[in-house]
C-alpha cells in the first residue's frame, strides 16, 4: 500500500473513531464501554494522530529530498 493511501485510511479511521465514541445520540442506556476501554482507544487515537503527523513529515522530507 502506498503511503498516501495508508495515510488516508488512517485519517478516515481516526475520524470515524472520533465520531462513533464521542459524538452521536446518547440514549439513556447502559453504555457498556468501561472508562479503561475508552482511555485505551484515546491513547490509540493519539498514536494515530502522531502517526499521521509522522507520515506527513516523512512525506515533506521526501519531497525536499527529491527537489534538492
Amino acid at each position: 500500500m502506498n503511503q498516501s493511501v495508508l495515510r488516508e485510511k488512517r485519517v478516515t479511521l481516526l475520524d470515524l473513531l472520533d465520531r462513533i465514541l464521542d459524538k452521536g445520540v446518547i440514549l439513556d442506556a447502559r453504555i457498556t464501554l468501561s472508562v479503561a476501554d475508552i482511555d485505551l482507544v484515546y491513547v490509540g487515537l493519539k498514536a494515530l494522530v502522531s502517526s499521521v503527523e509522522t507520515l506527513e513529515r516523512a512525506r515533506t522530507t521526501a519531497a525536499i529530498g527529491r527537489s534538492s
Partner: protein
Amino acid sequence: MIYVYAVTTSNVRSAPDVKGFEEAEVSLVRARGVAAVVSPIQSNPDLDEANVLRHEAVVEAAMALGPVLPVRFGTLLADEDAVREAIEIRRTELAAGLRRVKGRVELALRVLWSHDDGHASRPAVSAASGRDYLLTSLEQSRQVRCLRRRAEARARDIHRPLASLAADSTCHVLNTSRQLLLAAYLVDRRSVAAFRRELDQLTSANPDLRMFCTGPWPPFSFVGAGGGVAVATSAHE
C-alpha cells in the same frame, strides 16, 4: 438485549437490509414519529476496528433510506419496550434533529500546519537572575499568544468560506500544536461538490498546510443543539 445503531423517522419503509452484530437481522422499533434502528445481541460488542466499522455500516445503510441520527457506539437496552421508551421520552428533540439533518451529510476536516514555535531553535537559557527569568518567561508567553493569534487567523480563513456552504459547523483551533483546525460541516447532499471545489481552492491557496477531508459521514456531530441529545447519561458505569 437490544443494540441501538441509530434513530430515524418512523415513516421509513423498512429496516436497512444489512446484518448487525452477531450476524443478526436489523429491525426498526417505532414510537410516535421516530424509530430506532436495532438488532438483538447476546453480549457486549468489543471495542475494535471490525465492530466500529460494523456499527458504521448499519448507520450508513439506514442513511440510504431516510434521515438518521447516529447513536453512540456501545448503546444497549434491555428489550424493545426499553428502546421505545428511550426514544419516546426524547421524541421532540429527536424529531427536531431529524428535520435538521434531512438531506444532509457531515464532512470532517483536519488541517495540519508546520509552524516555527521557536522552542526547538532557542538555546537553553540558564536564568542568571530573577529578572532574566521573568523576562524570559514573559517573552515565552508573548510568543505563545502570538502563535495562538496567528493560528486563529489562519484557521478562520479556511473555516469561514467552508462554513458558508454548510447548514451548520463545529470548529476547534489548535487542539494539538500541529493541528491547526479540526472542523465538521453539515452539508446538503447537493452542495457537497461545491464544498469540495472550495476545499480544492483553499488547498491550492495554502500550500504550506496539509488538509485532510473525510466523509460524507452520518451527521454524528450534529445530533442535537449544543452537541448532543444527551439525556441521563449513565455512561461509564
